[in-house]
């Protein structure tokens, strides 16, 4: 029996039709993957189901009855819960408090703490979540926080759980444990929807796959056994795409960018323990590692945003020192870790964002007065060259999809002809089409003789683009290898602080 049916759902936003007569169904005890590029309407469809948005047309049936959700509270009371991409947790509260908040068991006027604790503990052990209910959420890793969100849904007796991009923030290992949990939930009778654009993971976990494109449901009944990554990506994008592009470096030159004795201490904790490395012209140096092992500090040091205890950076033999502004003007381009908090002022226009950091360059201003004409010409050129999909450069950056927002950041950095590019998670949260585009731009730049440093949580990305790979673990470089030398599993072991000796290597090869 179908647990849930959505019929003929349409939803328009000013200027766009986000959903166009979409039909959707969910069976009992299944894991459904809702696949589509950013902007395809996946989240919108699920927000309609969750009562956060109201459809212009269409009907929703749940357990055989037509329902009208006025708000998420309605949906939650009916047993439909959503785990958002950005977690809705109170960092200073304990796990238990976060789970029960809004649904506290009461005894009189007070919260019945004892009962709450029992219920939460029972849930945790039933699903083997391995979380201490008394830990404060701010102390948890991202993967653990996600489990708290799932617990929240379970505590509210959810039968349908919607997960919005659940793997976007997880390490490969955490993804595996999430999948274990999801399968367990399914066994327990829950129906699960995963919103995603990651194909490999979809194939691994889904019982059924739906593909949305431009607000239309392209396919509702794909069996992952009969699908391939290529067929799915073509359905998503609507054309042929090149995945995991690989172009070996042709002309690696001399050392351009050299970092020596980099040591960073933050709040009394040594975050980077004195590392040295260099990047040659025409080379992409990839840094693999689990987030929180010094990547942020490394990025900040290389872009002048913090003051390391010791560091010597030279670009073509010339030492670089000083403020972030100085680094930028010395030719170190920066693609920040998080475009929304660091890379863009989303309330400002695309044009304003395209000049951010370079707004003092003589080509855009004179005596402190910005040249509207020059900035317009430049912005329109960026928009064309980097294929930023927008009706105008005068709309706010926040109105664009993640992929197009990232293209603003990339366009800004690349069109100012930097010698070195520090790229952090350049394709995080962008769709397949934009990812392909950004990767090929990075490779183009490398082939022009730039030195590129690539830091990414996406191991596939590091492995396919890099010409050399360093593994960062607890602020130290623990391995240097050529792509292909080490398997994904071996890199994963190094990233978690394990050593790989020959015997283990052989075993792994067999498993691989």
């Amino acid at each position, binding site marked *: 029996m179908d647990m849930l049916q959505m019929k003929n759902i349409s939803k328009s936003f000013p200027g766009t039709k986000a959903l166009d007569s979409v039909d959707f169904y969910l069976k009992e005890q299944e894991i459904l993957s809702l696949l589509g590029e950013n902007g395809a309407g996946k989240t919108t469809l699920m927000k309609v189901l969750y009562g956060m948005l109201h459809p212009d047309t269409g009907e929703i049936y749940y357990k055989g009855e037509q329902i009208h959700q006025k708000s998420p509270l309605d949906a939650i009371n009916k047993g439909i819960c959503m785990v958002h991409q950005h977690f809705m947790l109170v960092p200073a509260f304990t796990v238990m408090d976060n789970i029960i908040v809004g649904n506290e068991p009461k005894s009189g006027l007070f919260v019945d703490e004892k009962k709450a604790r029992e219920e939460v503990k029972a849930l945790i052990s039933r699903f083997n979540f391995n979380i201490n209910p008394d830990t404060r959420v701010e102390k948890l890793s991202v993967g653990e926080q996600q489990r708290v969100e799932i617990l929240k849904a379970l505590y509210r007796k959810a039968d349908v759980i919607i997960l919005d991009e659940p793997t976007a923030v997880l390490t490969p290992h955490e993804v595996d444990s999430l999948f274990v949990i999801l399968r367990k939930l399914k066994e327990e009778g829950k129906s699960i929807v995963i919103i995603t654009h990651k194909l490999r993971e979809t194939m691994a976990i889904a019982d059924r796959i739906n593909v949305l494109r431009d607000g239309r449901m392209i396919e509702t009944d794909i069996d992952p056994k009969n699908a391939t990554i290529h067929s799915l990506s073509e359905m998503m994008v609507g054309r042929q795409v090149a995945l995991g592009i690989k172009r070996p470096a042709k002309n690696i030159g001399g050392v351009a960018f050299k970092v020596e004795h980099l040591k960073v201490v933050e709040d009394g904790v040594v975050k980077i323990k004195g590392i040295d490395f260099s990047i040659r012209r025409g080379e992409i140096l990839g840094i693999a590692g689990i987030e929180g092992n010094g990547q942020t500090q490394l990025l900040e040091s290389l872009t002048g945003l913090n003051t390391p205890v010791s560091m010597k950076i030279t670009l073509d033999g010339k030492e670089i020192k000083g403020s972030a502004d100085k680094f930028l003007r010395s030719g170190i381009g920066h693609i920040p870790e998080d475009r929304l908090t660091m890379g863009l002022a989303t309330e400002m226009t695309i044009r304003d964002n395209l000049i951010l950091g370079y707004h003092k360059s003589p080509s855009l201003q004179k005596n402190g007065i910005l040249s509207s004409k020059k900035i317009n010409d430049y912005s329109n050129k960026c928009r064309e060259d980097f294929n930023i999909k927008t009706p105008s450069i005068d709309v706010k950056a926040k*109105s664009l999809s993640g992929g197009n927002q990232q293209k603003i950041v990339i366009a800004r950095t690349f069109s100012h002809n930097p010698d070195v590019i520090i790229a952090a998670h350049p394709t995080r949260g962008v769709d397949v089409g934009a990812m392909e585009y950004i990767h090929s731009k990075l490779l183009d730049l490398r082939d022009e003789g730039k030195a590129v440093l690539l830091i990414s949580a996406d191991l596939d990305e590091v492995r396919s683009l890099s010409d050399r790979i360093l593994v960062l673990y607890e602020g130290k470089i623990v391995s240097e290898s050529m792509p292909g030398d080490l398997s994904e599993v071996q890199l994963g072991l190094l990233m978690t602080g394990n050593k790989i000796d020959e015997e283990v290597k052989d075993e792994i090869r067999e498993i691989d």
Partner: protein
Amino acid sequence: MKSGKLINNRFLKSGSGSFTTSVMAFLLAIIVGGILIEIAGFSSLATYGAIFRGSLGSTKGIVLSLSQATPLLLTGLSFAIAFRVRIINTGAEGQVYIGAMAAALVGAYVNFLPGITHVAVSVLVGMIAGGMVGLFIGFLKIKFGASEVIVGIMLNEILILITAWLSTGPLMTPGSATAQTNPILETARLGRLVPRSQLTWALVLAVIIAFYLEWMIRKTTLGYEIQVIGSNLKAAKTAGINVPKIYLLTIFISGAIAGLGGAALSLGIHYRFIEGISTGFGFAGIPVAALAMYSPAGVVVSSFLFGALRAGAMTLNRTTSIPIEFVSVVQALVVVFVAAPMLIASIKKNLMKPFNGIRNKRESIKGGDA
């Protein structure tokens, strides 16, 4: 809900908000204020009629409105420009006092400056005095992370009392019964635009400053950096913008404009410093700036509206028995509605339904997907 959110964010994060939202907030305040007046047993028509006659109904009324608007325009600008980098300058009142005192002292004791240079120097010194107070607040914020809100309020008390002490003690006019300093020299007086009124050249100066600031924010690299800091501080730092420098510069400008407001009072109206020279103009600038959505050019309009209300209140007081407190009620309601953008947004949405097709084109495209 979607559009409500849009307005809300815009109000909080960006300086130039929707013009219609401001207008609606003002109209709504008039309507709700009218209902309250009726409930209290007075005629709202008579009340608003008297306010209108007193403010916009005659040349004299308009002149009075403009002169009432002048200090509000300056303190409104002071608050607005600081808020563009998200600094809340609650210290404007103190800056007004120190500006008034500094300008009055130069006006009274510096006697070698010929003609117009005397008034110019007096004004400038008043501005610098206010600006230095601003710089001090900014310095504490940057160096020690001190909250500018608290420091500003504390400094208000200190500066008001210090200037009061000066005007009752060492600098008091000998033989005077009230707390005031020596009168300024003729050459230091701000000229009047209309004879026998309190409307002075300060208004012209203030309007010029307002439009200069608007241009500066929109068209210069400094203004651009101010906008980026106000929109996303972390992105500003990442882009290499020297945030402390811009903070200091902005709060200096903010303080200097408030100081000019003080100078306008002592050089243009009282011709000396008197104790209690500002009747809360520093704080009155906050709703003026908020109604204008922190746009300097908008402050010109909003300060005129508030000035007109004040002028109208005077007529109300003279010609009717209706309590003038209702004017304060209306002013307070304006603030409430400006601060409740969601409410305005939903009213607007329902009123504007027939025009939605046109409006939609102007709104940016909002995709639903994250």
